C-alpha cells in the first residue's frame, strides 16, 4: 500500500509536467489541426534556457538560492513564448492553406532545427542544474510515504499555471475567441475575431507553459541532454489524446493519468518498460474511447 501511494504521488508530479506540455499540443491542435512536433523541443529548450539562466545568476555573483528560480522561470517563459510565435509565423503560417502534409513536414523540420541548435550551442553532454537551486528536504506523509518539498512546489506551480489558463480560456473574451477559433475559423472570422492573432496567442501560451515544464522537469531530475524533448513530447501528446484532443481540462486529466499509470507500471512491472506502458495505454484508449476521456473539441474538416 505504501509503495502504491508513493508511486501515485510521484506519478502525479510527473503527470503535472506532462499536462503542462500536453496543453501546448492540444491548444495548437485545437486551432490548427496540426501536431506541432516542434513543441517537445521547445520544452527541451526550456530546460536549457533555465540552466543558462541559473548559470548566469552564478556568473554575475547574484544571490544564489531557490528564489533565483522565479525570475529565471519568468524569463524562460517569455523567451519561449516569443520563440513559439516566431516558429508559427515563419514555418506554419505560410502553409495554412497547403493541405495536411506540408505543415507536418515543416513542423518536423522546425524540431530538427531546435534540436540541432541545442546540441551545437550547449554541447552533447548532460547538463546538471546547480545544487543551490533546489529545495532539499522532504515531508513524510503517512508511514513510509515521503514527498520532496521541491516536488510539492513543482506540483503547486503546475496546478497554478493550469488554473490560470483554465480561467483565462473560459472566462475572458479572448479565451472565448480562442474556443471559437478552434471550432470554426471562418465563422469566427465572421464574428469579428482576428483569427491570426488568436493563433499567435496560442503559440505564445503553449510554448511558455512547455518551457516552464521543461525547467521544472530539469530541476526535479537534475540532469538532461538535448534528446529530452522527443520522448517527453511524444508522451505529452499521448496525454493530450488521452484526455480528448483540443480539450484543455482533458489535457490536464490525461497528463495526470498517464503519469500515474506510468509510475505504477515502473514500480510494479519494471522501469525499463515504462515508455512501452505509455504507448500501450494510447492504443487501448484509442480502441476503447477514440475521442478521449473528456471528449475531443475540434471541428471536423470537411
Amino acid at each position, binding site marked *: 500500500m505504501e509503495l502504491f501511494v508513493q508511486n501515485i504521488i510521484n506519478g502525479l508530479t510527473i503527470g503535472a509536467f506532462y499536462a503542462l506540455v500536453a496543453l501546448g499540443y492540444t491548444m495548437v*491542435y485545437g486551432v490548427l*489541426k496540426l*501536431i506541432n512536433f516542434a513543441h517537445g523541443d521547445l520544452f527541451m529548450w526550456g530546460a536549457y534556457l533555465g540552466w543558462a539562466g541559473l548559470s548566469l545568476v552564478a556568473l554575475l555573483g547574484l544571490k544564489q538560492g531557490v528564489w533565483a528560480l522565479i525570475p529565471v522561470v519568468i524569463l524562460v517563459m517569455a523567451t519561449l513564448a516569443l520563440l513559439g510565435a516566431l516558429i508559427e509565423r*515563419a*514555418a506554419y503560417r*505560410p*502553409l495554412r492553406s*497547403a*493541405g*495536411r*502534409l*506540408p*505543415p*507536418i*513536414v*515543416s513542423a*518536423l*523540420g*522546425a*524540431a*530538427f*532545427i531546435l*534540436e*540541432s*541548435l541545442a*546540441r*551545437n550551442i550547449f554541447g*552533447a553532454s548532460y547538463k546538471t542544474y546547480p545544487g543551490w537551486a533546489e529545495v532539499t528536504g522532504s515531508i513524510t506523509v503517512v508511514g513510509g510515504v515521503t514527498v520532496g518539498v521541491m516536488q510539492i512546489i513543482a506540483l503547486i506551480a503546475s496546478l497554478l499555471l493550469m488554473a490560470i489558463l483554465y480561467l483565462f480560456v473560459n472566462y475572458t473574451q479572448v479565451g472565448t475567441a480562442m474556443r471559437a477559433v478552434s471550432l470554426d475559423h471562418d465563422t469566427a472570422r465572421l464574428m469579428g475575431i482576428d483569427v491570426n492573432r488568436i493563433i499567435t496567442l496560442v503559440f505564445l501560451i503553449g510554448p511558455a507553459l512547455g518551457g516552464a515544464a521543461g525547467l521544472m522537469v530539469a530541476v526535479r531530475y537534475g540532469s538532461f541532454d538535448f534528446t529530452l524533448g*522527443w*520522448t517527453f513530447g*511524444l508522451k505529452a*501528446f*499521448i496525454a493530450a*489524446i488521452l484526455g480528448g*484532443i483540443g480539450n484543455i481540462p482533458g489535457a490536464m486529466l490525461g497528463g495526470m493519468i498517464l503519469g500515474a499509470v506510468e509510475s505504477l507500471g515502473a514500480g510494479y512491472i519494471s522501469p*525499463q*518498460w515504462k*515508455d*512501452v506502458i505509455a*504507448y*500501450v495505454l*494510447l*492504443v487501448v484508449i*484509442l*480502441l476503447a474511447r*477514440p475521442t478521449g476521456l473528456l471528449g475531443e473539441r475540434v471541428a471536423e474538416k470537411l
Partner: protein
Amino acid sequence: MRDLFLRVRRLPGRYVSPAFLVAALLLPVALDNYLLAVLWQAGIYILMALGLTIIVGYAGLFQLGQAAFYAIGAYTVAILNLYLGVPIILGLPIAVILAGALGYLVSRPILHLRGDYLAIVTIAFGEIVRMLLVNNVFGVTGGANGLSGIAQLSLFGFTFDSIVKNYYLVVACVALTIIGVQRLENSRLGRAWTYVREDELAAEAMGVDTVHVKAVAFVLGSALASLAGVLYASRITVISPDIGRFLESVIVFCIVVLGGTGSLPGVFLGAFGMVVLPELFRFVKDWRDGLVGLAMVLMMIFRPAGLWPSRRVALELSGAEEGET
C-alpha cells in the same frame, strides 16, 4: 534550366524510366565503392519510401513508423539466420509476410479514426518495437548492441558479397517495385485509393470498402519496408535497434513528401535530397540535422507540392478533370 526541367517532365514515361535504369546500371563503372555504398543506401531508402508512397501518397494515410517495419524485416531474417540457420533467401518471404501481418494488426483497429491518430499510433508502434529490441525481448534481439554475424544473401550458390553485387541487387528490387507500384496505381485498387484519399465519404457511398482498401495499402507499404530491412541486414551483417529510430521514419516520410506525395520520380529526388546530399555534406557534422530541418521548412514554404509533384495529385488540386491534358 527550368525549361530543361519542364522538357524532361513532358517526356513520356516510357523513355524516362529505361534511360534512368540504364544510367543506374552503368554507374558502378564510374563511381568508387564509397559513392556506390551511398547510392546503395539511397536505394534502401527508396524501397522504404516506395512503400510509404502507397500508404501516404496513394491512400492518403499518415504513417510515421516506417522504420519499425524496416527493423522488423532486418531482425526477422537475422534471428532466423543466427538461431535457426535459415538462409536469408528463405527468411526474406517470412520477414515480408510478418511485417505485412503486423502492418494489418497495427492499422486495422484505428483506420476508421481521424488520420492524425494513425500518425501517433504508428509513432508509438515504432517506439514499442525499438524498446522491445533494446530490452532484448525473449533474449534473442541482443539488446542495445544488436546482432552481428548475419549471413549474406546467396542464391543458387551465388553470394551477394560485394558492394557492386549488392548495388545491382537493390537496383533490381527498386526497378521491380516501381513496375509493381505503377501498375497498382493504375489498377482498380489504385483508383479506389485515390478516391478514398480525395473524398472518403463519397468513396464509401460508391461502394468502395474504404477500411479494406486502406488496410491493403498499409500491408503492402509495411511489407516493402521489411524487404528493405532484409536487404540492409544481409549486406551490413550487423544490426542494432538504432535502425528503427523515429528519425529514420521521419527521413522516409520526408522523402515522400519532399519529392512530391504520390509521385514515383519524386521518391528518387527526395531520396537524393534526404540521403545522398546529407551524406556528401558530412563535413558540416553536427549542423547536418539542423540544415536538413531548415531545408525541410524552406521546401515546404516555397514548394509545398514537392519537387516533382504527381500529375494525378496536381490535377486534383487544380480541380481539372483527369485526362484533360
